[in-house]
Every structure is written in C-alpha cells, then in structure tokens.
C-alpha cells in the first residue's frame, strides 16, 4: 500500500469517527428531549402555569416556580449587568498597566471555574447572614449575580477588544476624552457582543439550583413573591422536588416543568444568537 493511500484511508476513518462522535451527542439529546416531551407535553396547560404547588400531582402547578425564577432573573440581571460591564470596561480600557489589574484578571478567570455550590456558601455567609437579607429573592439574586459576573466580565472584555484601535484613535484625534470615547464609540460598537454574553450568562443562571438551595430557596412555597425580600422557589428546584417524589403524577409534572425550563433557555439563546448576527451584519470593519 502506498503512503498516500494509507493517508486517504486514515482521512476517511477520522471523518467517520468525527461523524459518530457528533451523532452520539445529538442522539442522546434527542432521546432525552423526546422522552420528556412524551411524558410531559400533555400535562402543560394554563392551569399548570397558574396553579400553586399541591399535594395532589394533578392539581399542582408551577406558578410559584416560574414567578420566582422571573424575580430572580430580573434582580440578577439588574445587579450583574452594570457591575460586570463596568468591570469589563475598567479592565480593558483603564486598568491596563497596573499589576493590580493583572492580578484581578487571573482571579476573574479562576472565578469562572469555581463550582457553583461554593458561590452558594459565599452567598449564605455574606448576603443571608452578614447583610441579613434572609432567605430572600435578593439574597439569591446577589448570589447568582456573583456567579455570572465573571462570564459577563469576560464577554464584555472580548467585545470591547474586538473594536479596532483605529476607532479609538479617530475619537481621541478629534479631542474626545477617554470617557467620551468609551461611551460614544467603544460601547455602542461592542453592545452586540456584550448583550450576547449577558444573555448567555443569565440563561445559565436560570438553570442554577445548588447555590439557591444553599442560600435557602424553599422547595415548597405556597404563595407567589410580591417583593424582593420574600422567600421564593425557582423552576429547577421545583423540578428537583417533583422528581424525588414517589408518585408517578409528580414525575409527569417534572417533565412538563422541564419542557418549560428548556423552552426559556432555548428562547434566550435564540435571542443571543439573533443579536449577535444582527450586530455583526451592521458592523463589519
């Protein structure tokens, strides 16, 4: 066998191996989603969205769970978005030279890899106890904000770095200050990337369970929250709770709730992709 023949066979083999790997993941995902759809799709109706949890599976709903998730989402975004974007701007545009900023940089990358339960413990100590926010939405939102902050910071920095230096030079050259340059040129040009990162970070926060359990989110909440200081539950905790019940009806409920949670995540990811494409089309250097 000639060498080139051998190479061609190797090429082909690797191609099939790659296809197999890809399909393995896709097939697993399809089986999982298919299963859940079969179990849960028929369970979803308006009542399911409007009912409070109950001891009887067929009367139970996810009202407290999705409203809790929504509250958590809003406050997490309110906290993490300005903090993360501001930190990203500082690190990229202002703090370049100091050794402090390079120390910060390393630690932010490290933070992105810390297991989420550790954030839960941190939140428990700082927000629940020291700031005495109790087991409230606010405590949960602060904790999740900490968790996604590194993601937002990294996304912001990457988006800012993608703005060509020539744009900054043009702005400075006209007499703009650093603040004006960042605010009028750099930020608008990098908003697509920043939004994409923020949405992806938030869609991760929607699915987080462990840190919220640690800061005291409840498995059973008989009311919908009406203020950020109220106790709460969220979708994944509700799902976890139902899955661990022996009654078959609750398993069906869990499947239905999973469908809704997946839907939320898919929609958010869709928005992120849409924004990225829209901005990329508008701005091509």
């Amino acid at each position, binding site marked *: 066998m000639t060498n080139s023949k051998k190479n061609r066979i190797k090429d082909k083999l690797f191609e099939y191996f790659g296809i197999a790997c890809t399909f393995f993941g896709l097939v697993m995902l399809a089986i999982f989603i298919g299963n859940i759809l079969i179990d849960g799709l028929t369970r979803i109706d308006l009542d399911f969205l409007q009912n409070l949890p109950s001891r009887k599976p067929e009367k139970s709903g996810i009202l407290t769970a999705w409203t809790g998730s929504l509250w958590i989402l809003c406050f997490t975004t309110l906290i993490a978005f300005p903090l993360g974007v501001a930190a990203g701007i500082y690190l990229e545009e202002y703090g370049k*030279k100091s050794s402090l900023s390079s120390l910060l940089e390393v630690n932010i990358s490290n933070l992105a890899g810390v297991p989420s339960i550790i954030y839960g413990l941190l939140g428990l100590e700082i927000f629940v106890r020291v700031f005495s926010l109790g087991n409230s939405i606010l405590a949960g939102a602060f904790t999740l904000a900490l968790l996604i902050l590194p993601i937002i910071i990294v996304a912001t920095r990457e988006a800012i770095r993608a703005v060509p230096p020539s744009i900054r030079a*043009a702005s*400075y*050259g*006209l*007499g703009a200050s650093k603040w004006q340059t960042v605010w009028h040129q750099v930020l*608008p040009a990098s908003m697509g990337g920043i939004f994409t990162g923020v949405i992806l970070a938030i869609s991760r926060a929607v699915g987080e369970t462990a840190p919220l359990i640690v800061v005291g989110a409840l498995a059973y909440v008989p009311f919908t929250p009406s203020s950020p200081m109220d106790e709460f539950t969220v979708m994944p905790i509700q799902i976890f709770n139902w899955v661990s019940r022996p009654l078959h009806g609750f398993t069906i409920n869990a499947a239905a709730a999973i469908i809704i949670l997946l839907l939320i995540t898919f929609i958010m990811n869709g928005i992120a992709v849409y924004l990225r494409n829209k901005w990329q089309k*508008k*701005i091509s250097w």
Partner: protein
Amino acid sequence: MTNELNYILESKNVNVYYGELHALKDINLKIQKNSVTALIGPSGCGKSTFLRVFNRMNDYIDSFKIEGDVFMEGQNIYDKKVRVDELRKNIGMVFQKPNPFPKSIYENVAYGLKIQGIKDKEFLMDRVENSLKQAALWDEVKDDLKKSALALSGGQQQRICIARALAVEPNVLLMDEPTSALDPISTAKVEELINELKEKYTIVIVTHNMQQASRVSDNTAFFYMGDLIEHAKTEDIFRNPKKERTQNYITGRFG
C-alpha cells in the same frame, strides 16, 4: 523665534524613544502657517511618530518617551497645563487607513462638535454640510446622510474622515499617508482638496509618493532612521538636494 507669526508649529531638540529604540533624534523643525509640509523617508524612519508628536497621539503608547519641546503658536504643548483635548481640537488628524465610526455619515462628521457639547441642530447641519463640501463629498452623499459610513467606498470613507477632521475647524491638519489606500481618482481628489485647504489650514502630510510630495507640498522634510536629514522648499529638495542621501532617496537609488 518661537513666537514668530508665520510659524505655527516648532519642534526643538525633540528626541523620541520607544523603550530602547531611539525613534527620533534631535529634531529641529519649524512649520510655516498656511503651508503644506511633506514628510518623506523610508519605512520606519519616524515620519508617523513625528506627526503624532504634534497632537500627542503617541501618549497612548506605553513605551513612548519624549525629550525636548514642541510649540504650537508659542505654547509648549507638552506642558502640564495643556489640555490634550483642547490641543486636538486645534490639530486634526487623518489616518493612513480610513477609519470612519460605525455610524451614519452625519454622525461621523458631527461627532467632533457633539463631544464639545454643541447641540444646536441647525449649526451642526451647517457645519456638516460645509465640511462635506470642503472634502468634495457633499454631492455624492447629500441625499443619504443617514447611511452608515461603513457602506461607502474606501475613497469616500477617507474623505468622510477628512470632513470629520475639518468640522471642528482646526488650525492644523496632520495627514498620515492619507491616500495610500485609495485609487488614483480618489487620490487626485484628495490632493486637489489639500491644495484648496491650504488657504485656511496648515497641513503636514506623510507620503511615500514622491510625485505626490512634489505636487502638493510647499516644503519637504526628509527623514532617515530617526534623523531629519534635510528640510527645505519642496522644489529645492527635488531639484537640487543638498545631501546625497536625499538625492538617492528621491531618485529611487536607495540601498
């Protein structure tokens, strides 16, 4: 003398370093008001660096260090009291590669005024129109000022950048190889433009194109490896240069 009226810019014993690299060596050069000065010389000799000395755009480079004095109308621009943003309103710059903002044509040209806090819509529109006219672009874009500047051709983009610099009515215009990315027709337009702008502005232009230097400039400065070799009237430089190096460079006999 530094406060002599017909000189607007002057560098006095200017040395520039990028870290270990001695990029400009003891440069003494005066630039006449309402004239066009061409900076020529081989790649890496320090032309862009010297140009950026005048509007302090080198300040953003970490390793940059400058010694000596640079005067604009008698004022030392590296003095601590000097506000860099004020300085740059007086000394506009056009870059080698067209770099319009990813915004509309109007926003591009009005930006320099807007950051000065000017909000008067009529005044802004007036200035935008005038600047675009000066840049010989008005007729081409007057109907779609809202169009993104990125949708224009390279030559049009460069003229947007020129209009943008003119809109704040500077006294001096620094141009770093403004036509190197342009086709001959756009180049001709920009050169024509430089000739007209001379009435009102002082222009310093870096160029690799000897014909361009002789066409547009009144004075020419030849740089070589960080040294200013020769600075004289353009016709003298091109007809009978005093230094052999200059002669070799402009005739293309450069090793």
